Structure formats: structure tokens, C-alpha cells
């Protein structure tokens, strides 16, 4: 049984017929070809697949695409305005908040949501906000610096 869904991704409405078991992460990557959203652990822990669903950060490997029917999704591809990066993206660039880059899209999407909830986070609050995002390279220092820089730029 296929189900027809319409999901607005980065401002564009997409209609597709999908199997109910298709995960949102696979819908974004395989159906819409938006491969910025990464799949790391596939067990709801690493956060590489984080996107915004109706403005809230979610792990897209733990949401069925059919659950997003009628919703608005923002992926990492939807953050920049032309050549102009968001504060968080610019922060990761300036502070070198990555090494291999695999976790980066999820880190950025979580950081965007975190700063929306709390525009002035302490270092401790940034670290707590990243509890659901794993980085296996950096030791997190530059990621925390990048989000701090983004918060400062947003003030």
C-alpha cells in the first residue's frame, strides 16, 4: 500500500507516493535527492539526520515520511540565503567546527534549533543541547566555539 504525501521542504512543496515504512531521512535523500541530511547510527542516537519538522529539531531516521504529510521540513540545504550563510553555518566555517564533516549537518540543524529556543546559551547549555549529536573527530571544542560565535553574531 502506497500513500500519497505532500511535504514542503525548504519552501517547496513536494508530492510523492511512498511506502508507509519509508523514513523521512530516506525520503529526503533518495526521493528528493537532498543528500545533506546524513544517516549515521540509524538508531535515534547520533543526530546526523537532524532536520526541522514544523520548526522543531527531530531525528529524521525516527520519523516516517508519512508522518510529515502536510508539514514543513527544513534541511541543511535550506539554511543559506544564496551565498549568504546562516550565523550557525558561518560560525562552523570561522571556528572550524568540524573535521570529517559527517556529523556537521545534524550539528548545524540542532544548533539552529537550540539558538531559537535560547539565543544566549552558556557553554554548559550548548553542550547539553548537543546531547543528541555525536562527533567522533573533534572532541566537540570547536563545535561549541562555533555555536557560541553564532549566538554572538545573532545578538
Amino acid at each position: 500500500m502506497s500513500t500519497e504525501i505532500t511535504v514542503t521542504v525548504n519552501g517547496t512543496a513536494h508530492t510523492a507516493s511512498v511506502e508507509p515504512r519509508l523514513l523521512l531521512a530516506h525520503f529526503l535523500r533518495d526521493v528528493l535527492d537532498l543528500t545533506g541530511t546524513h544517516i549515521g547510527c540509524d538508531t535515534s542516537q547520533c543526530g546526523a539526520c537532524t532536520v526541522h519538522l514544523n520548526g522543531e529539531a527531530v531525528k529524521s531516521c525516527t520519523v516516517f515520511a508519512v508522518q510529515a504529510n502536510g508539514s514543513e521540513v527544513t534541511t541543511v540545504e535550506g539554511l543559506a540565503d544564496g551565498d549568504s550563510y546562516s550565523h550557525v553555518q558561518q560560525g562552523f566555517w570561522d571556528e572550524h567546527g568540524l573535521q570529517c564533516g559527517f556529523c556537521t549537518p545534524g550539528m548545524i540543524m540542532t544548533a539552529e534549533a537550540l539558538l531559537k529556543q535560547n539565543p544566549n546559551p552558556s557553554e554548559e547549555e550548548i553542550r547539553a543541547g548537543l546531547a543528541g549529536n555525536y562527533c567522533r573527530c573533534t572532541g566537540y571544542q570547536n563545535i561549541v566555539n562555533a555555536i557560541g560565535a553564532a549566538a554572538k553574531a545573532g545578538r
Partner: protein
Amino acid sequence: MVTSSFDYFAPTTLDEATSLLSRYRGEAKVLAGGHSLIPMMKLRLAEPGILVDIGQIDGLSYIREDGDGVSIGSMTTYREMATSSVIQSRYPLLADASSKVADLQVRNRGTIGGSLAHSDPAGDIPAVVLAIGGSVVARTRRSSREIAIDRFQVDLLTTALHDNEIITEIKLPSLAAGTGTAYSKFHNPASHYAITGVAAVVTISGGVCTEARVAVTGAGDKATRARRTERILRGKELTPAVIRRAAERAAAEVEDTLNEDIHATAEYRVHMTQVHAVKAIEAAVAAAG
């Protein structure tokens, strides 16, 4: 990881949802936030043939002061409970426990009703609601009933819910004046699930403990009242020595079903349950003022 195939329904009313559950009784599972069910389906530990998604039904997400107590809609998320001023002021342990479930992304999706219906042996919310008391409202197509929380958790991943029922609401009682609450957990650093967690709701009057409800999660097969601990606390002045003696019995009710896995041995879980019972009871006493 891909789940087994299933048929999907997204009803927009409770009547439709309960009708679907009756029609496909035994085959259908309710999908709420999905953060317990979907991971289990990916591991093929659950392979329901039909999912009834209740996420499109309006009116199941609320926190309402009703008469003496508070009613919480079953689709209310952890984040909504953690940030609610009503929950923060009336049931601080529920706000605190909700803020410590997993991570920000999971708290945006996971719901109180889903957590209770799933009854994970390491879930935080079942123990917290058990310590507060109250009831779960479950509805079928034809009727509605209230299940006392003390009779709700039946066994590992098993509750008193029938397979044609949907949780619509959780009713929490008003806490007496002089009541303090706290939740203390020792969590797995990756998943943030409780290796052990203790929820305490303690009422102090005239320097003496007049009522105590203590519940343990993570250690055994389900969230369980620590009744021996409660009996030691009741009627006494809660000195550090009394609290320690009571906490020593905190794992007594789960000793026949102790978890033992890669995260902790049974013996370690018992010890950490006692440690966190001291922390939770002390913090509840301090909060009682």
C-alpha cells in the same frame, strides 16, 4: 534499517482511530511520537501489520488544571512538560525528569502517553507518574475508563491497556501542602535511558513524614513502587539515618526481576538504586521545606 511493511492510517478524530483499532484488533499498533515504537520496528522486535497514527488528531496535546489536579493530554511531548510552568510548579519532578529524557530532538517528539503505553523498563516517565499517583484515561470506540496508575504497569513492556484502547489523558492528583518531589537517575551516557532512576514524592507535616511514594525504574522489568522504603519513611522524622535505612530497601520489590546487561550487573543496579533513592528522598525532603 528498514521496518517490516505495514498499512498506515492517519485518522483525524478519536472515533475514527478507535474504530480502526477495533476493526484491526490484535494487528494494529498506535503510533504516537514514535520514539519507542519506530526503533523497535527497525530492529524487527515489533512488526505490526497496521499503524494507526494519532498525530493528526487535534486536542490530545494539553496541560490543564482541572479541579484539584492536572490533566495532561496523551500526545503532550516531553519538551512541553519540561517547559510548562504548571508542571514546573506543581510536579517539579515531572518537569525535571522530562528535561532529562534522551536529548532535545527526542524530547520534541516523545509523548507522555507513548512512554506509559510502551512501559520501557528503563523509561523515566512511568516511575515519575507512579510516584505522583493518579490515573490513565483509556478510550475504546464505545467507552472510556480510568486505570489507576498503580495497576497500569503489569510486566515488561506490558500494561493494563487493551489492544483496542488509546490513552487519551493522564490525570494527576493535587499534591498536599508540605509535599516535596524529586527524581534522581543514573543514566546511560549514550541513550540517556535510566540504568536506575528513583522518583520520590514525600509529604512532611509537623516535622514528620505523613506520606511517601517512591518508585524505581531501570533496575527491574517495569517501574515499581518501593513499598518497603515508603513504609520505613512514613510516620518518622526523616533524618539522614532514617533515609539511608529506607533507601537500603529501595530495590527490594524488583529483586526477582533485576536487569543485567552490558550496561550494568544486577548487583550494581541494586547499589545504584539505593544511592539514587537517598538522593531523591533527600532532595524531596529539602523541597518539602
